[in-house]
């Protein structure tokens, strides 16, 4: 339980700190942090044993971050990117990248190659997840516009 609370705080800060580097406005700052936390916890709940997320965990987390960003974008009248970019930070495959560098430095080229491919696949799963949510929300918006007038 204590460990869980620790991850809540860490993932929140882990989205806020990079957001400040990217010069986010003050108003959406806390909301962006919450989005990152939700995404990270979604991924964590799917397999609480390990912090090295699999591709499907990262994908699920991204879907949550994406949906949250689109909803907050509507609420706070800011583009969804403002919430999405800080939100995916805790999901970025840092551990895999770390292992890649470790393998490279240890001259284990074969190990490094497969780890590099894993890193890239994880990055792609983030992008695909984001894309899917954006496309879905755009379709919904279009359908609504078509009905109204």
């Amino acid at each position, binding site marked *: 339980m204590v460990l869980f609370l*620790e*991850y809540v705080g*860490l*993932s929140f*800060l*882990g989205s*806020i*700190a*990079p*957001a*400040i*580097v*990217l*010069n*986010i*406005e003050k108003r*959406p700052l806390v909301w962006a942090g919450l989005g990152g936390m939700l995404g990270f916890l979604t991924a964590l709940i799917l397999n609480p044993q390990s*912090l090295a997320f699999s591709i499907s965990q990262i994908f699920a987390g991204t879907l949550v971050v994406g949906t949250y960003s689109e909803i907050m974008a509507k609420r706070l*009248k*800011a*583009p969804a*990117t*403002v919430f999405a*970019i800080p939100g*995916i*930070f*805790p999901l*970025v495959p*840092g*551990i895999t*990248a*770390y292992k*890649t*560098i*470790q393998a*490279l*430095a240890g001259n284990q080229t074969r190990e490094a190659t497969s780890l590099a491919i894993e890193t890239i696949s994880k*990055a*792609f799963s*983030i*992008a*695909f997840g*984001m*894309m899917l949510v954006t496309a879905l929300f755009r379709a919904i918006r279009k359908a609504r516009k078509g009905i109204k007038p």
Partner: protein
Amino acid sequence: MDQKQILDVAIRAGTMLLRNGAEIYRVEDTMNRICRSYGLSCEAFVLPTGVFISVEGESGITTHVKRIPSRTVDLTRISQINNLSRIIEREKPDYDAIIKEFDSISNARKYSNFTVSFAYALTAFVYVLLFGGSLMESLSAVIVGVFLGFLRILFTKGSSFPFIEYFVGGFASGILGSVFALLFRVNPYLVIIGAVTNLVPGVALTNGIRDLLHGDSVSGLTRLGEAIMMVLVIAAGTGIALAFWNAGGLI
């Protein structure tokens, strides 16, 4: 507003968006919207390194080309230009009012160097813990993070090669991580990767893939290439630092 002024507004909005890290489709869409709301048909073509726009109206075809020398990510400006383009669409204000808006956006407040360096340190601290590091490891990473923050201030004053900041950053993290490993018996790789999280081009990578999936293949591949280049440069920096250190037989 005449044709030239409309074109000027569109190209200002486009360059400002692109310079601050917006996706290609957003830039093109915003420029098209601005022209359309003043009743002009326009054709916008955007690459990561430049904006091209051509409008057709009473005074024939007018074209404008603008080169973008460097890009950063600035979420405040993306959001504000987005709002401005909405206002333009809704209220169609006159030229002087829009230009005043642009000036106030480009003069908008940024976080101070101190705050940003603090954010660098916080990122390093948090990510070492998230990667399963100990408190000692994350505190060492904080020092590396602060150092990377200083490097950033140093390099924003302008450097001839955009990638040199990443190389120096990676090299410094490699050396500092090894030093801390010697001093405090921590895992150098965890310290390095936590600190280097600050430099990793997550935004460029995802934006590149998003551009690709949108069908902007030229821009997507360019950005992806740029992101991969950054990762390689960082890895080269840390790798060389670690190789030096290992050759000295100190780890």
